[in-house]
C-alpha cells in the first residue's frame, strides 16, 4: 500500500530535478540572449568547410 508514497516521491524528485535545471539555465544567462544562438548554430558548417582551407595554406607556407 505504501507504494504510492514511493511513486509520489519519485515523481516529485523528477519534477524538482527539471525545476532545478530550469533555475540553473536561467542563472547561467541562457535566456538573456535568445537571438544570437539561433544564428550561431548555422555557422558550424561554414567553420568545418574552412578548416581544411587553413591547413592547406599553412602547408604551403
Amino acid at each position, binding site marked *: 500500500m505504501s507504494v504510492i508514497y514511493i511513486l509520489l516521491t519519485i515523481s516529485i524528485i523528477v519534477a524538482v530535478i527539471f*525545476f532545478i535545471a530550469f533555475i540553473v539555465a536561467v542563472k547561467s544567462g541562457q535566456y538573456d540572449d535568445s537571438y544570437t544562438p539561433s544564428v550561431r548554430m548555422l555557422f558550424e558548417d561554414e567553420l568545418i568547410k574552412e578548416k581544411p582551407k587553413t591547413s592547406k595554406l599553412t602547408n604551403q607556407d
Partner: protein
Amino acid sequence: MEHTSCFHCGDLCDTSTVLHDEKSFCCQGCKTVYEIFSDNDLTCYYDLQSNPGTTPQDIQGKYDFLSQQNIIDKLVEFDDGKSQIVTLYIPQIHCSSCIWILENLNKLNPNISSPQVDFGKKTVRLQYNSEHYSLKEVVILLSSIGYEPYISLEDFSTGKSHVNRSLIYKLGIAGFAFGNVMFLSFPEYFEVNEFWLEQYKPFFRWLMFAFSLPVVFYASSDYFVSAYKGLRAKVLNIDVPIALGIIVLFLRSTIDIMFDFGSGFFDSLTGLLFFLLLGKFFQQKTYSFLSFERDYKSYFPIAITKITKDGKEQPVQVYDIKESDRLLIRNEELIPVDGVLIKGNAKIDYSFVTGESEAVRKVSGDKLFAGGKQTSGSIEMEALKSVEQSYLTQLWGNDVFNKSKEDGFTTLTNMISKRFTIVVLSIAFISTTFWLFYDSSKALNVFTSVLIIACPCAIALAAPFTLGNMLRIFGKHKFYLKNATVIEQMAAIDTIIFDKTGTITSNKQSTAKYEGATLSSSEEKLLKNTLRGSNHPLSRTLYALLEEHDIITLDQFEEHLGQGLEGVHLKDRIKIGSANFVGKNTETALLNTAVHISSNNTYKGKYTFYNSYRKGLSQLFNTLKKQYDLAILSGDNEGELENLKKLLPVRTKMLFNQKPDDKLEYIKYHQSEGAKVMMLGDGLNDAGALAQSNVGIALSENVNVFSPACDAILDAEKFNRLGDFLGLSKSAIKIVNWSFMLSLFYNVIGVYFAVTGQLAPVIAAILMPLSSISVVVFTTIATNWVSRNLK
C-alpha cells in the same frame, strides 16, 4: 558612369573606385579590411551576407587613454593579471556576417579567446591575454576591420550592470507549483469515493500545501510590496485586491485542510499567480539594443588629450579637466567642455546638440560649446569650465531629470481598481451580515468565498496583454516604446510639439536653389567634376543634386580647408565656396547656408540650401490638427518661417530661437494650463523638453545611433505614420475597457456562487482560468484586428 557598389560595405563607388582582387571597393579602408579577411581566410564573411561591412574610421591616437590603468580597471569585467574579460558595445553589428566575423576574432589574433556576440544588445564579450595584448590593441583591431567599439563616459561612471532575472524565477516557480498542484487536486474534482483516494486525501492535500508555500512567500512578494506601498500612499491600486485575494486563498485553504472541511483552493491560488506573472512577463518587452535613459554621459568620451605645460600630450579623464587646461581635439572627436579655440581650423558639427547637420566654422578666439564634434583636422582649445558646469551639461541639473514620470500618473487599471475594491468589500460585508442572521455557520465561508472569487485576475491581465501586444505591434513598425504605460499616456495627449531641425526636416537630404547668372554647359561640367573630388558634406549634397555630366580629368584641383574648392580644366578656372573665397563681399547677413561660384574670376551666382521637409509632413499636420494643438519650437533662426507657413495648417504655432531651457519652460507652461503634451525631438538640446513632456518621442534616422532620454524612439521613415500610432493607442484603451467589462461579467457569475454559499473549489478552478484565458484571447485578437491596416 556606371554605378558599382562596394564589395565590402555596399556603398556606391562614385568618386574613387579601388580595384583589388577583381572586386571593386569604395575606398582604401574597405579594401584594407578585405585584405585582412582574405589573408586570414575569413572571406566566408562575404558569403553569409552580401556587402556586410562598414568602412573603418580613422582612429589614430583616439584610444590612447585606454592604456591608463584606472580606465582599464573600470572597463574590464574580470582581471586576474594574466587575462582580462571585457564587453564592448559595437553599434555597427547588424547582420549574421557581423556575428560570424566577431566570433572568429581569435583567428585574427591568437591572444583573443572566446569572443561571444550578443546580437540583441550589440555587444561582444571577449577574453584576451593581458600579458601580451592590451585593451587598446583589441579596440584598434576591432576598429581596423570596421567594428569600432563605442566607449563613452557612461561606461566609466556606471560600472558593471546587473541583470535582474527575478521575474523569470518567479514565473518558473509559479508554473512548477501550478502544474503539480493541478495533478494532485485532479482526483478531488470528480468526488469519487474510491477507497484508496479517500485513504490518501490528507497526504495529497498537505503536498499541495507544500507546493503553494514558495508561491505565496516568494512568487507573489511583488504584489504584497506594491499593495503595501499603495495603502501607505492611500491609493487602492490593483494589487490591493490581488494581495487580499492571495492571503484569503491561502489562509482559507490551510484552515480547510487542517480541519478537513474540504480540499482548499491551492489549484486556484497557484494558477492565479501563474497567470498574473505571465501577464507581467508579457508586458516586460524591452528593446535591449535601445536605451531610453541616456544623458550626456553616453555621448561624451571617457578621456581626451591634454597638452601639458611642457608641451607633451597626455590622456586625461574627462572629469579631471580643470579650468584653463589646454586640450587637443582630434578630427572626429567630441568637445567635452566649454572653452576657447586657440589653434587650428575648427569646423564644429553640433548635430548631437541641435540636430543641425551643417558644420559651423570657428576661428581662434571663438567660444566652443561642449557637445560639438570637430570635423576637420585637429585643434587646440583652452577649457573654460569643467564638464558638469558646461552649458549643455548644466541642463541635466534641472529637476525634471530627477523625478520619474510614472509617479504622478494613475493608470487605467488602478482607476478601475479603486471602485472595484470598494464594491467587492461591501458585497463581502453585506452578504456576511445576511448569513450571520440566516445561518451563522456559513458566514465565514461566504466572506472568504467572495474575496477569493472577486480576486481581479482578469482585470489585472487586461491591460498588460492589450498594451504589451500593442507595444510589440508598434515595435514591428519601428516605433519603440519604453514601456506599456506610454500607450496610455499617448491616448490622453491633446497637444503635440515638434522640434524643427532634424525632426520635421530630414538630415540626409536638403535641396538647393540656384540664383545668379546661368552657367554654361561647360561651366556646369567643370563644376560637377570639381565637386567630385571633395568630401565636404555640402559638396556631396550639391554633387548629388546636379545633373550627370561626362567625367573629365582636371588639370588642377585644390581644396582650401574651410573656404572652398578650386578646379582648372584647360583654360577654365572655377572657384566654389564661401563668398569671400570666390571674391564677392556680401554685407547682408544670410539666414541660409549658401555656396558661391565664380568662373574665371567673375562672380556667377550661388546655390542656397534649404531644409528638405520629411515626406508626408503637411498631410500629417492636416490630419493631426483636427484633434490636437500643434506647435513648432525651433532652436534656429526664422529663415524657414515663410516656407513653413506654406506647408503647415494656419493654426500651427511657430517659435524660433528657442534655447533648450526655453523649450522646457514652454512645455511646463502648457502643462500648468492642463494640457497633456507630446514632444517630438531629436537632439540633446531637446532632452529637457522630452523629459518635461507627458510623452517624449525621439526621432531617429538610425535607431542604433544615440538619441536623448525619452519615452519612445520613432524611426524617421515612419514619421508620417504618427497619426496612426496615436489613433491605435486610443483604440488600445478602448480594448482594455471592453476587457474590463468581460472580466466583470465573470466576476458577477462567481460572486453569485460565493454569496449563496455554494462556491466549491472546482468552480473557482474553472472560472479563474476561463476568465483569464478569454480575456487574453479577446485582447490579442482585438489588438491585431485594429492594427491590421498599419503597414
